[in-house]
C-alpha cells in the first residue's frame, strides 16, 4: 500500500519547502516473537525469546517484553546495555528519533540490537500496515510519534494474545513521560516509568546505579538555592547569534584552573577569536567541548587569563561563597594590555558529553549514596553520582556518564556506567587512555576478518598481472629493533650506463584491502596504528600488519615500488612506479645497517647497496637543508622494558644514526615523487599533506627566549629560521640549542591531510617541499592506502571506484584522519607520561627566565592517585618563602627544565 508523507521544512536560505516522500506500508513485517503463527518466519536475525524468564520483576511477574520510548532509550541506554535487560522491542519510530538526536546513542543501540544474546528486536512499525499512524490536525510531530509508539504497543499486546489462548505474554511500555504513561494506561497498555521498572527488578539491585537520574523532583531537594542563571532556548540563541549579540563557539575548559575557560569563536570572516570566561557563574554549566553561545561583557569587566593553578577539591556542596572568594582572587590587578575579551555563557547549542573515565571520591558521610566522581581529564568538572557500591568502587577506575546539570546544583549529575579495574594496573590505565582519546581499540569484528585472505597464502598467477618481478634484486629493509610491521624496503645498484638505480619498495596493502568492504571501512575509521609503550593498536588485522604485508626477509611479498634512475649527484633522471613482487634479502636494524656500512671488510651486495644509499642520502639531505627544510629536535624517549614484567627499567633518548636519516631521506623522496605523480594525474582529488607556515606571532616565545640569551632568531622564512637556529649556540650551555629547537617545534602548525581539489596551498613548510603526501607506511596509516590506490590507478595497475574520485568523500576521510592522528599522538604522549611519570610543574615564582639553571628537590606525591605527580621544590636559587633549604639528600637535576615555567604576575 502506498502512502505519501508530507512535511514542511525550512531551508537554510529562510524559505519554506514542502517535501513529499513515498511511504509503503506492508503486511509481511514480523513481530519478532518466535512461534508466532500469524507472522511466522517473516523476520530473520536476532529475535525475542519465546518465553522470557528473567528478569523477575515484582511489578509484572509474568513473562513480558519491554517497549521503551525515545527518551528512555536516549537517557537510559546504560541500563539497556546491561546484560540483565533482555527481550526489548525497539520501534523504528524510536530508533529514528534517537538517530536524529544523538549519533553516539544510536550507534550503541545498533550494537546492542546486533548482539544475539540480548534478544533485542527492531520492529519497523512505520511500515507496518496496522501500526502506521498519520499526523492528525492539531498534533505536533512529537505527539504523533508518542501516539505511534502507543499504537504499536497496543498492537503488540493484542497480537501476542492472538498467538495462543493461554498465552500470558505481555508487552510493557516503558516511558518517563507522565502524560504519555497515563494515556497508555487509559488505552489498556501496561506502562511503567523506567525507574519503577528497574527498581522492581529485585534480582539486579546494581542496575539502579546505572539509572540516569533525571526526575526533577529529586533535584529540587538538594538545595533550593539557584546557583546558575538559566540557559536561553535555542531559538533565542540562534537569533542572537544572527544579530551578533551572542557568539557561538567551542567551550574549552582550562586544565590548570577549574574556574576558567576559553571559547573559540567559530567565524569564517576572521581567524579564530578567543573569549575568556572566568568564574563558575559565567561558565554556567558548560562542559569541555560543548558548543555554546557566549555574550561579551562590557570592557570594564574584562580580565586577563590568570596564572594561578586551581583544582576543584571541595567536597562540600554549600561552599559556594568560598568559591566566590576564590574567583575574586583570580581578578588581581593586571595591566590593561593583558586584558582579553571576556564573556559569559548564555546558553548551550550542543552538548558534547561522552562517558568519562575517572575515580570515585567517596563521600565523607557514611551510608551516603551520593558521591562525587573525579574525571581523569582535568577539564571535566566533578560529577555527582548515586551508588550503593561506593566501597567496592573506591580505588578503581570507573566510567561515568553525565545526565544533566540542574541550575541549583554545584556539580552535574551522572550515573555509573562501568568498572574498568584497579588504579595503577597497566591494563586499566591503558584502557583509560584509549577511551579518553577516543582510540578505537576493540578487537576486529568477524565481518572485518572475513575479508582477510585465506591462509596459507601464496602469490598466484592472477596476482602477477600488472606486476613486475623484482625478486632478483638485492632488497633489504632497515627498521628499529623489534619492528614487525615492516612497510618499506630499499635497494640500490649500479646500472650499465654508470648511473644508479634506487628503489623504494612499500608493502602493497591496497592489494589486500579492497575499497568499500568492512575491512576497508574499519581501517578508514581507525585511520592509524597507535603505538603505546607496551602495546600496539593495529589499524589492520595482525595477519596483514605482521605477516602478509610486512616485508620480511626471504619471503616473496607484494610491493608497490618507486624506482629512480639517479646520477652520482643524486639528481633524478627517471622515475618509475610499479606494482611488484620482491624478496627482501635482509631485515636489518638501524644499528646493524650502520655496522655494515662502517666495517671496511664487508663487501657483499647488501652492504654495497647500503653504502650507495647512504652516499646518496647525504647529498639529498644537504640539498634539502639548503632549500630551507627545518631540523627540529624533539628528543624521543625510548624504554628498556623488563621482559618479564613489562615494566620500564630504563629510559634513554633515541640515538640518531646515519642510517636513520638514510631511510628517512628516501622515504621523503618517495613521498614527494608520488605526490607529484598523483597530483599530475588527479589534480582535483589527490590526497596530499601540507604543513602551513606558522603566523609570525607563533614565534614570539622563541624569539623572546633567545633574546634573553642575547641570541637572535630570524623567522621570516624557513631557511633563515633554520640558519639562525644553527647559529644559536652558547659556549657555556651546550644543551641550549636543542632547547631552542624544542621550543621552535612548539611554534609550528599542525601538518594536515587534505584533498587537492579543496585547497590551493600545498606547501609543506617543515620539509620545504612544494608538494608532499604519505605513501610509505600503508600498514599503519590509512592515508597511504588511499595514496596507493590513486597511484595504482595512475599507473594503470588497478581499477578506480567512484568514492576515490569524489572530493567531498575524500575531504571527509582527511578530516577523520587528521582527528585520529591527533588523538593517536595525544594517546602516545599520555602513555609515555604514564610510564615515566613526567611531572606537571607547578611553580609560583617571580623572576625566572626561560632556560635558567635551577636546582630542585624531587619527590613523588601520590596523594592524588589519578594524577600522581613529582613535586619539585626549589633549592637554588634561593628565594625566601618558596625555596627550601639545601639539604644533603637533595638530588641534583642539572638537566634543563623542560617545561616553560609559569611566570607569576
Amino acid at each position, binding site marked *: 500500500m502506498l502512502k*505519501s508523507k508530507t*512535511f*514542511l521544512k525550512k531551508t537554510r536560505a*529562510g*524559505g*519554506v519547502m*514542502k517535501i*513529499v516522500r513515498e511511504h509503503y506500508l506492508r503486511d509481511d513485517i514480523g513481530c519478532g516473537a518466535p512461534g508466532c503463527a500469524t507472522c511466522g518466519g517473516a523476520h530473520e536475525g536476532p529475535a525475542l525469546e519465546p518465553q522470557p524468564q528473567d528478569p523477575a520483576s515484582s511489578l509484572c511477574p509474568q513473562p513480558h517484553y519491554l517497549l521503551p520510548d525515545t527518551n528512555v532509550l536516549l537517557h537510559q541506554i546504560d541500563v539497556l546495555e546491561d546484560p540483565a535487560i533482555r527481550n526489548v522491542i525497539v520501534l523504528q519510530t524510536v530508533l529514528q528519533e534517537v538517530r536524529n538526536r544523538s549519533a553516539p546513542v544510536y550507534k550503541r543501540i545498533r550494537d546492542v540490537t546486533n548482539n544475539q544474546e540480548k534478544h533485542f528486536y527492531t520492529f519497523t512499525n512505520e511500515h507496518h500496515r496496522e501500526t502506521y499512524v498519520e499526523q492528525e490536525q492539531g498534533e*505536533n510531530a512529537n505527539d504523533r510519534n508518542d501516539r505511534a509508539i502507543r499504537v504499536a504497543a497496543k498492537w503488540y499486546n493484542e497480537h501476542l494474545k492472538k498467538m495462543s489462548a493461554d498465552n500470558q505474554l505481555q508487552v510493557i511500555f516503558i516511558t518517563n513521560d507522565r502524560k504519555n504513561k497515563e494515556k497508555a494506561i487509559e488505552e489498556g497498555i501496561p506502562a511503567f516509568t523506567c525507574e519503577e521498572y528497574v527498581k522492581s527488578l529485585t534480582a539486579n539491585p546494581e542496575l539502579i546505579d546505572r539509572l540516569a537520574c533525571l526526575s526533577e523532583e529529586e533535584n529540587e531537594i538538594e538545595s533550593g538555592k539557584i546557583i546558575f542563571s538559566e540557559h536561553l532556548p535555542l531559538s533565542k540563541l540562534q537569533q542572537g547569534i544572527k544579530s551578533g549579540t551572542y557568539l557561538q563557539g567551542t567551550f574549552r575548559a582550562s586544565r590548570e584552573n577549574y574556574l576558567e575557560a576559553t571559547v573559540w569563536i567559530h567565524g569564517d570572516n576572521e581567524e579564530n577569536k578567543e573569549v575568556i570566561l572566568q568564574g563558575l557563574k559565567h561558565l554556567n554549566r558548560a562542559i569541555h567541548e560543548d558548543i555554546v553561545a557566549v555574550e561579551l561583557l562590557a570592557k570594564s569587566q574584562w580580565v586577563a587569563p590568570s596564572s594561578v593553578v586551581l583544582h576543584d577539591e571541595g567536597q562540600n556542596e554549600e561552599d559556594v561563597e568560598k568559591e566566590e572568594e576564590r574567583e575574586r582572587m583570580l581578578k588581581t590587578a593586571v595591566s590593561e594590555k593583558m586584558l582579553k575579551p571576556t564573556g559569559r555563557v548564555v546558553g548551550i547549542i550542543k552538548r558534547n558529553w561522552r562517558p568519562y573515565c575517572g575515580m570515585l571520591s567517596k563521600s565523607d558521610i557514611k551510608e551516603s549514596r551520593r558521591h562525587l566522581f573525579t574525571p581523569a581529564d582535568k577539564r571535566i568538572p566533578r560529577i555527582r553520582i548515586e551508588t550503593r557500591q561506593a566501597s567496592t568502587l573506591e580505588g578503581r577506575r570507573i566510567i561515568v556518564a553525565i545526565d544533566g546539570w540542574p541550575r541549583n546544583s554545584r556539580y552535574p549529575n551522572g550515573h555509573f556506567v562501568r568498572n574498568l579495574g584497579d588504579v595503577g594496573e597497566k591494563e586499566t590505565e591503558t584502557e583509560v587512555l584509549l577511551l579518553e582519546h577516543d582510540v578505537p581499540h576493540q578487537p576486529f569484528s568477524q565481518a572485518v576478518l572475513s575479508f582477510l585472505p585465506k591462509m596459507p597464502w601464496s602469490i598466484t598467477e592472477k596476482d602477477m598481472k600488472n606486476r613486475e618481478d623484482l625478486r632478483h634484486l638485492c632488497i633489504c629493509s632497515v627498521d628499529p629493533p623489534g619492528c614487525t610491521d615492516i612497510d618499506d624496503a630499499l635497494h640500490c645498484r649500479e646500472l650499465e650506463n654508470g648511473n644508479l638505480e634506487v628503489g623504494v619498495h612499500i608493502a602493497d596493502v591496497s592489494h589486500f584491502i579492497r575499497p568499500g568492504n568492512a575491512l576497508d571501512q574499519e581501517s578508514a575509521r581507525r585511520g592509524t596504528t597507535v603505538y603505546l609503550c607496551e602495546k600496539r593498536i593495529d589499524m589492520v588485522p595482525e595477519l596483514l600488519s605482521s605477516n602478509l604485508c610486512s616485508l620480511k626477509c626471504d619471503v616473496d611479498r607484494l610491493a608497490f615500488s618507486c624506482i629512480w634512475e639517479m646520477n652520482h649527484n643524486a639528481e633524478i633522471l627517471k622515475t618509475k612506479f610499479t606494482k611488484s613482487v620482491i624478496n627482501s634479502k635482509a631485515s636489518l636494524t638501524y644499528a646493524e645497517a650502520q655496522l655494515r656500512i662502517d666495517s671496511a671488510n664487508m663487501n657483499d651486495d647488501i652492504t654495497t647497496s647500503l653504502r650507495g644509499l647512504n652516499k646518496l642520502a647525504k647529498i639529498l639531505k644537504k640539498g634539502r637543508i639548503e632549500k630551507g627544510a627545518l631540523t627540529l629536535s624533539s628528543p624521543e624517549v625510548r624504554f628498556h622494558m623488563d621482559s618479564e614484567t613489562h615494566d620500564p627499567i630504563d629510559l634513554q633518548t633515541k640515538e640518531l644514526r646515519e642510517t636513520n636519516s638514510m631511510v628517512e631521506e628516501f622515504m621523503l623522496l618517495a613521498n614527494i615523487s608520488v605526490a607529484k605523480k598523483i597530483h599530475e594525474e588527479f589534480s582535483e582529488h589527490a590526497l596530499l599533506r601540507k604543513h602551513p607556515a606558522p603566523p609570525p606571532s607563533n614565534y614570539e616565545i622563541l624569539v623572546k627566549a633567545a633574546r634573553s640569551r642575547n641570541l637572535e632568531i630570524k623567522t621570516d622564512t624557513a631557511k633563515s629560521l633554520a640558519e639562525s637556529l644553527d647559529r644559536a649556540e652558547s659556549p657555556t650551555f651546550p644543551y641550549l640549542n636543542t632547547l631552542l629547537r624544542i621550543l621552535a617545534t612548539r611554534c609550528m602548525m599542525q601538518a594536515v591531510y587534505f584533498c587537492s581539489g579543496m585547497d590551493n596551498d600545498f606547501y609543506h613548510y617543515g620539509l620545504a617541499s612544494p608538494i608532499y603526501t604519505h605513501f610509505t607506511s600503508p600498514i599503519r596509516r590509512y592515508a597511504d592506502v588511499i595514496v596507493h590506490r590513486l597511484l595504482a590507478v595512475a599507473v594503470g595497475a588497478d581499477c578506480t571506484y567512484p568514492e576515490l574520485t569524489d572530493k567531498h568523500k575524500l575531504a571527509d576521510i582527511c578530516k577523520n584522519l587528521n582527528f585520529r592522528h591527533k588523538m593517536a599522538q595525544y594517546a602516545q604522549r599520555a602513555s609515555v607520561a604514564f610510564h615515566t611519570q613526567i611531572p606537571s610543574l607547578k611553580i609560583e615564582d617571580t623572576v625566572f627566565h626561560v632556560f635558567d639553571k635551577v636546582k630542585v628537590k624531587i619527590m613523588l606525591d601520590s596523594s592524588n592517585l589519578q594524577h600522581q605527580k613529582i613535586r619539585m621544590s626549589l633549592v637554588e636559587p634561593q628565594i625566601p618563602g618558596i625555596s627550601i633549604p639545601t639539604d644533603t639528600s637533595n638530588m641534583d637535576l642539572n638537566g634543563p627544565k623542560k617545561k616553560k615555567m609559569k611566570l607569576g604576575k
Partner: protein
Amino acid sequence: MASVALSEAEKVYIVHGVQEDLRVDGRGCEDYRCVEVETDVVSNTSGSARVKLGHTDILVGVKAEMGTPKLEKPNEGYLEFFVDCSASATPEFEGRGGDDLGTEIANTLYRIFNNKSSVDLKTLCISPREHCWILYVDVLLLECGGNLFDAISIAVKAALFNTRIPRVRVLEDEEGSKDIELSDDPYDCIRLSVENIPCIVTLCKIGYRHVVDATLQEEACSLASLLVSVTSKGVVTCMRKVGKGSLDPESIFEMMETGKRVGKVLHASLQSVLHKEESLGPKRQKVGFLG
C-alpha cells in the same frame, strides 16, 4: 494553436447547425460540455487541480514560495503564471512550438488577476517590505480539445481553492532583526479566498450566432471570439477579442450578456463541486491520472 482541418461541407454543416441552436454534439449554444474537476492531485505542490473539459485536459499546480514583495506594493504578495504547452497535447507544440501560445495564455491570466478584487493579495504578505508569499501558478496543457482559456481558468481557480500556504510567524527581537518560524503542525495553514476569482467564458462567433465552449471543430469555423472574464457575481472584469475576424458592437454587447449569464452558472456549479469534494476529507479516494 492546435487546429483541425475541416472540409467546406463540414464547416457549412456546423455553421448551419449553430444557426438552429443545435451543435454537432447535440448541445445548445449556451451549454458547456461536461467538466471534470479534481483537486489535490499533485502531492508536492501547495495546491493543484486537474480539469477535463471534453478532450481538453489541464493540470495546474500552485507552489508557494517565500520572497520579497514588489517595491510598489510593499504589503502584498503576488502571483506568477507560467503555461507549459506539452508536446503530448499536440505535435505542433514540440520544441519551442508551444511558447507563443503559452505566453499568450499567461499574459491573459496576468490581466484577469491584475485587479484588487480578484485575490486578496494582502493575505500573502508576511512582513511588509521584507517577506511575502509568491504563488507560482504552473499550467500544464495535457490535451487540447478546444476552449483552452475557459478550462485553464477553471483549473486555476480550483487549484487556488485547494492551495494551502503554511502559516509562518515573524519573530522579532529587541534589535529588530527578524526570524521566520514555521509551525510544527502541517495542518496549520492559510487559505485564499477564491470568492472573487473570475472565470473566463469564451464566446465564439459562428455565423450570426455565438456559442460557448467551442470544440476544436467549431473553433475552426469561427473567425473571431471574445474572452470575457466574469466573477461569480456576474461582474465582467476583463475582455479580449481573439481571432482575425471582426465583431460588430451589437454582437459584442450580446456576447457580454451571454458571458455574464453563463459565467454565473459556471461559478455556482464549480463552487458547489469544490465544496463537495472538500467535505469528503483527506480520506477521499483520489482518482488522479488513472481515471
